[in-house]
């Protein structure tokens, strides 16, 4: 059986599945239940300074799709609303009781050196394994100059990270907000400040739905709503891209990444790790299904690793990073076309109408002996994959390589590139 033990900046956990800083990690009761269920670690819900924040009633919004609940999810809950002392006491107790699990504490205090110095000293007494700086929360706290208000300014990130490294011996993980135009700015700033690692993504500015009777965003608090932080399966593609951008950035090279954003299955986790993540953090999936989901995450990941011949997480971590490139380096001579497995085809016609109405008119709808029949017109197919995605049957439409005998050619080298034309003149 594959070894899925995780060592992330020296923080050891029996598996790479951590619960993210969020409602599931707000108190001892929940965290103990999580550890009993098998989670490898937790990032305790963000601690702030006393007096504790006050939360509103009605906190979550959700996006459903074709009957699937919580495909996307958002929240307007603030950081922990319990007294600091209570949180610190519980953290210390849980770490003592569960020494093999990762215990990271998320922090958010005003952008003053003294404030960070003070809280770090108190957190260190819990004997936790590390701290995560919450520079990501996009709602509420950002209006008070914290959370994403810090994470959107690389200079602040670097400054606060440097303070933290100065005042604690614990590993410092900087949690990044995706509400920026280029994630590399904040990531490089964290590295420049001496961060041991980054974690991302925090949640995305969002309005999940609009209540058309009340005429207000959801979640609605007494007739009004505010933007919340978006998460859940729908954000995974955004998170994967940001993780990959950092993983392949020469300036960030080697900086460990804890992947966050829509992780629900072992496959999601494997994808984050393939793009360079050392651990993954989960919240929405647990809030949807409870802590038990970690069982299949662990088991599925190990079984997949066995099948692939990976003995440890290091064996495939970052394996996909070299294959993430810029558009301009893609092989413009590579050709694929769609193939329909007629034995699997259920004759729904979705491939045809998707291509006919919105793409390249490359799938003919015919009648063969009175039966519906769909056939790819190779000459028209540009290999866009739309039909494959629209087809409801797995494996019915596949994309096959066309052996055109042409060598690798990228856009920089392509004579059709106007810049090359100019050079040839």
């Amino acid at each position, binding site marked *: 059986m594959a070894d899925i033990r995780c060592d992330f900046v020296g923080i050891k956990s029996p598996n790479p599945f951590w619960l993210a800083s969020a409602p599931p990690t707000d108190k001892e009761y929940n965290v103990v239940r999580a550890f009993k269920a098998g989670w490898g670690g937790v990032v305790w819900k963000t601690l702030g300074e006393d007096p504790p924040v006050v939360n509103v009633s009605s906190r979550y919004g959700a996006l459903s799709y074709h009957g699937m609940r919580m495909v996307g999810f958002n929240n307007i809950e603030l950081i922990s609303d319990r007294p600091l002392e209570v949180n610190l006491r519980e953290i210390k107790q849980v770490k003592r009781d569960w020494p093999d699990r990762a215990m990271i504490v998320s922090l958010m205090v005003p952008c003053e050196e003294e404030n960070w110095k003070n809280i770090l000293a108190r957190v260190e007494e819990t004997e936790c394994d590390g701290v995560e700086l919450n520079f990501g929360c996009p709602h509420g706290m950002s209006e008070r100059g914290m959370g994403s208000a810090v994470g959107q300014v690389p200079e602040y990130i670097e400054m606060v990270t440097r303070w933290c490294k100065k005042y604690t011996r614990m590993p410092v993980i900087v949690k990044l907000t995706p509400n920026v135009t280029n994630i590399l700015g904040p990531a490089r700033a964290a590295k420049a400040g001496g961060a041991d690692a980054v974690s991302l993504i925090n949640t995305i500015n969002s309005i999940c739905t609009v209540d058309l009777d009340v005429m207000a965003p959801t979640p609605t608090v007494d007739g009004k709503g505010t933007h919340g932080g978006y998460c859940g399966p729908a954000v995974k593609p955004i998170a994967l891209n940001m993780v990959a951008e950092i993983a392949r950035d020469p300036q960030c090279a080697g900086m460990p990444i804890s992947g966050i954003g829509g992780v629900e299955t072992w496959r999601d986790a494997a994808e984050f790790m393939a793009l360079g993540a050392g651990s993954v953090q989960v919240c929405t999936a647990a809030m949807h299904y409870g802590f038990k989901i970690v069982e299949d995450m662990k088991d599925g990941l190990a079984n997949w690793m066995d099948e692939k011949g990976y003995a440890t997480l290091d064996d495939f971590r970052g394996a996909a990073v070299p294959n993430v490139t810029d558009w301009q380096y893609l092989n413009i001579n590579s050709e694929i076309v769609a193939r329909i497995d007629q034995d699997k085809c259920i004759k729904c*016609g*979705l491939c045809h109408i998707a291509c006919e109405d919105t793409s390249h008119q490359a799938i003919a709808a015919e009648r063969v002996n009175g039966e519906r029949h769909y056939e790819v017109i190779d000459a028209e197919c540009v290999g866009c994959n739309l039909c494959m995605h629209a087809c409801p049957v797995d494996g019915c439409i596949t994309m096959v390589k066309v052996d055109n005998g042409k060598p690798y050619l990228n856009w920089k080298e392509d004579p059709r590139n106007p810049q090359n034309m100019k050079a040839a003149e």
Partner: protein
Amino acid sequence: MGVQQQQTGQETMSDQADIRAGRLPAAAYDANFSDVKPPLDPARAVIEANRCYFCYDAPCQEACPTGIDIPSFIKKIATDNLKGSARVILEENIMGGSCARVCPVEILCEEACVRNTQESKPVRIGMLQRRATDWLMENGRQPFERAAATGKRVAVVGGGPAGIACAHRLAVLGHDVVIYEARDKLGGLNEYGIAAYKLPDGFAQKEVDFILEIGGIEARTGQALGRDFTLSQLRGEYDAVFLGLGHAGVNLLGLEGDDWQGVESAVSYIEKLRQAEDLSALPIGRRVVVIGGGNTAIDMAVQAKRLGAEDVTLVYRRGPAEMSATDHEQDFAQINGVRIRHWARPVRLIGRDGQVREVEFEYTQLDEDGRLMGTGDRFTLLVDQLFTAIGQKFVPDPLKENERDVLEIANGRIAVNDEGQTSLPDVWAGGDCTPGEDLTVAAVQDGKIAALSIDRHLSK
């Protein structure tokens, strides 16, 4: 199926045939004749609607005799646009409510569903159609408005599905319609012929009322063609005439004893059952034999069982595959405790004092040329009541004037072209009195097609 049954009696042959009412406790009748297929609740309907792939040029739509845009109406259920959904259905099939209940979907839309190929479980189109149409009938109004009045008047003869569908479409198009119906109520087989548990709670009349809300349709009941008026009179009085005469006749066994006590056509009995105020007052035999292989035979056999008949046997001269009742209907009969015997035909009725008591059958088989023949082996069933369901037929007599057919009859039905037009240029016909499948949904389509054709002719 929860059919409440009588305790098994003694298997002796008394002098008197045992046909009597009140075989069951009073409460059992309600249970046995309530909705056989309760509706999907809103949540289940949305889950089911989300199973639809929204196929392009959908096979289900192609399989629907009225061509309802099924993916569109299902999508609208998924988006909670029930009003829009019902309208999509009713645009093509104004009797979408009853068709949702009585259509043999297993050989129409649901058989064509692509989900069958993938997981042998079609989207439950019939149940979804019921969800949308029920919602509209409970919460909304007739969704169509009449076009500006044309001043044209059309007579519709026969108030069954074909006639009602024709009348409604004509009314929408701005014409005024008078429906002549021989019976006391409109609805045709929905009111008089379909098994009670398929259209319970007076649904047939509720639907008729809903359809007539459009306005411009006058119903004259108790008015029979050939008795109270002639086709020639209608042609003189109206701009066009539509004939939806249905099947007025039934086939007989052609055996001695056809007219004995205890021998009755299933059609006649079901009509009594459908109109009965109190089912516990309706006599039914202890041992019942039904002869036939269609849906009427199944409806008769199951309803006999549900009225408390102790032993119900359905006998069909060919095999299960040849029965016109669908597999689903055959299964339903057997689940209800009906015994089905294939490959046998009645050859002799044995009676006493003018009352049928036994039926003698001969086993059948196919000869080398595929023709049905008797094997010579026989068996006899004891019977208190014998029902025949061996086919219904169009009776052209009301169309005779001066002992001559006034329009062309071919193969026992009124000859029509693709638009439902008869040999007379101002007379159209549709439903069971014309060629084609004898289904409610097919009759609705005939009425709709004819109405559109009439409209084109009147607009010239």
